[in-house]
């Protein structure tokens, strides 16, 4: 759908419209994902209720596989240019970073989709049967006990994935904005679909929607100012204009600032993080996993491209400011994480701290900074996916038991779950032999290479502080007496097991033998035009 829309957009300097050239091979993964999402809508429209779930699961998994194969075929083709192609009248750049991010998004979405599809941990799945039912009514209690679910989450997930993929490869700001909306709107909706704690879930959805709209407005306003400055929405044109003209920089930097705020919001970088804890807590856990892993990949992918392609020539002016933002984010994440009592909120603050680390990598404008950030996104995605997978397992009669006190002595009830979660926390803390260590290492060394030593020192201190609250959970799980009426650990079904295993094994493998992924992340830079 999107691709169709974009072709209708005229090429600015030409005085007559003509059909743009399209490299179908390059954009095939996106076309497959968005096309399958449309098919998913039709499935919802025409199939009877009981057939929808199996059809949607098969369709979604097949879509991810198909998109992956299409990407592999494109990459394996000898004639594929190494520097990437820019297609669809200059709106999409399919280059090595974009392909790396696409691959990352596809495999992380696979993990999230497995969590979404699971119906064994929570009978009937983590999603509400009828979203329109008012919380607290008799019908609501009935739907909690029933086994139906809104299978619309599957096409919505695919739409969001499609938006993310376009977002990471968008070569002009208008396309980027459309992609931002395409990825955001399904997420707003899915946040409100939790089967239990409906009010909390709906509150999260409304908060996310309102603040997301607010942030989109910032982005759009920034876009308008930059168009006013450069006379074009293309990143390359903005870059050229900034390097070679004497127009008013007030427009340029005002626009950049507003644009970056929109991106920082999506990436949950402090001080634009305020939605994160509430939304992570309220949303259904599989959706939280999807957001935490994939939205972060998309947001930082877009940010890398905007900063490196569009604004490299003015980096002297904005880099110091983003230093400050990174510091604020790391400090907020690490320090406020200390006082959290809810596991999901704690991971949310952890993600804010990680966003600060990622921002450090994003503003190191070297090849190493680019590849380091890409690698970090991959590793963080897997780890956080597995973390939320484990969180969905610890339950009591009211659903998930996310209060930290309920996790006390978990190791005695379920040693395997506790061990897996310990491993994940160690990875988040960045202990060697986990991917978190390698990720931090490559980002920090890239930052050092680019002359940001003080920032690295602060980042190290922040990660030491953050290590404290990860350790606190480990201590709680192993050294505390379990509460008498504490939660039990559900034996996960095949889907959730597969998802957690995927995350944990990737975390381990990327920690021990990161060379393969690092090579791929460093195999090319952004295509310029």
């Amino acid at each position, binding site marked *: 759908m999107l691709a169709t*829309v974009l072709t209708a957009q005229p090429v600015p300097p030409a005085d007559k419209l003509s059909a743009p050239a399209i490299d179908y091979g390059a954009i095939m993964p996106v076309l497959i994902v968005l096309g399958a999402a449309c098919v998913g809508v039709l499935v919802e*429209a025409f199939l009877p209720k009981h057939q929808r779930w199996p059809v949607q699961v098969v369709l979604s998994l097949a879509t991810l596989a198909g998109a992956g194969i299409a990407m592999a075929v494109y990459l394996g083709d000898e004639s594929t240019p190494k520097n990437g192609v820019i297609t669809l009248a200059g709106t999409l750049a399919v280059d090595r970073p974009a392909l790396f991010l696409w691959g990352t998004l596809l495999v992380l979405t696979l993990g999230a989709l497995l969590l979404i599809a699971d119906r064994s941990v929570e009978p009937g799945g983590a999603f509400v049967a009828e979203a329109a039912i008012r919380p607290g009514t008799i019908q609501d209690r009935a739907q909690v006990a029933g086994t139906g679910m809104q299978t619309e989450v599957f096409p919505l997930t695919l739409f969001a994935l499609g938006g993310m993929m376009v977002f990471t490869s968008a070569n002009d700001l208008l396309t980027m904005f459309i992609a931002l909306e395409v990825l955001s709107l399904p997420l707003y909706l899915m946040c409100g679909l939790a089967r239990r704690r409906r009010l909390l879930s709906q509150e999260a959805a409304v908060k996310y929607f309102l603040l997301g709209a607010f942030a989109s407005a910032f982005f759009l306003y920034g876009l308008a100012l930059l168009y006013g400055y450069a006379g074009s929405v293309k990143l390359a044109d903005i870059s050229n204009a900034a390097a070679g003209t004497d127009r008013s920089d007030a427009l340029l930097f005002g626009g950049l600032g507003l644009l970056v705020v929109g991106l920082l919001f999506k990436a949950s970088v402090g001080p634009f993080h305020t939605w994160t804890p509430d939304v992570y807590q309220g949303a259904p856990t599989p959706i939280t996993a999807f957001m935490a892993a994939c939205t972060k990949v998309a947001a930082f992918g877009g940010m890398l491209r905007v900063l490196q392609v569009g604004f490299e020539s003015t980096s002297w002016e904005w880099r110091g400011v983003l230093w400050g933002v990174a510091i604020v984010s790391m400090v907020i994440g690490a320090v406020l994480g200390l006082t959290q009592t809810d596991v999901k909120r704690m991971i949310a603050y952890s993600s804010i701290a990680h966003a600060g680390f990622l921002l450090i990598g994003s503003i190191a404008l070297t090849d190493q900074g680019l590849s380091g950030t890409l690698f970090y996104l991959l590793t963080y995605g897997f780890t956080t996916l597995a973390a939320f997978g484990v969180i969905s397992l610890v339950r009591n009669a009211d659903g998930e038991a996310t209060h930290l006190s309920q996790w006390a002595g978990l190791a005695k009830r379920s040693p395997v779950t506790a061990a897996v979660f310990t491993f994940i926390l160690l990875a988040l803390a960045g202990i060697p032999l986990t991917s978190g260590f390698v990720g931090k290492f490559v980002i920090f060394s890239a930052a050092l290479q680019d002359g940001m030593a003080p920032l690295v020192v602060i980042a190290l201190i922040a990660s030491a502080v953050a290590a404290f609250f990860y350790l606190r959970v480990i201590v709680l799980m192993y050294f505390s007496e379990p509460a008498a009426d504490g939660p039990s650990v559900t034996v996960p079904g095949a889907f959730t097991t597969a998802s957690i295993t995927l995350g944990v094994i990737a975390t381990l493998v990327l920690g021990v033998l990161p060379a393969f992924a690092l090579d791929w992340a460093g195999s090319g830079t952004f295509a310029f035009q």
Partner: protein
Amino acid sequence: MVSTLWSNAVALAQQPPSPVQPIQPPSGPSELGSYLPIVILFVLAAAFAIFSVLLGPMVGPQRKNRAKTEAYECGIEPSPQPVIGGGRVPVAYYLTAMLFILFDIEMVFLYPFAVSADALGLFGLVEIFLFIATVGFAYAYVWRRGGLDWN
């Protein structure tokens, strides 16, 4: 929201192609001055609105009766009561509004397509049908799931 944004964006893109750079200021910080006409327009519009609202009570006769204080002043009792009066707007209205957006977007795109259908040729025709089809999917979903049952 999306629809208005898109219509703005497309309108922007559909401006007469003659000035290649939309803004061609001489140089320096004075370029913001090219926005001055827009600002003046805003100010004039606002001034006119305020002027009209204020002028009415000032110059007109003040003879109130019950019918005049009611909404719309057209004599028909609004039904159901508005939100302030404790009434609710049926949810079907929202569905209708959203369906309108669906077709609104479709329309917005059909106009620019029609203008340049010649230049785009067969490619454009195929694309616009694909576009209508995707909008049709959404319509089909609403229809099948009971969005059009207004009872």
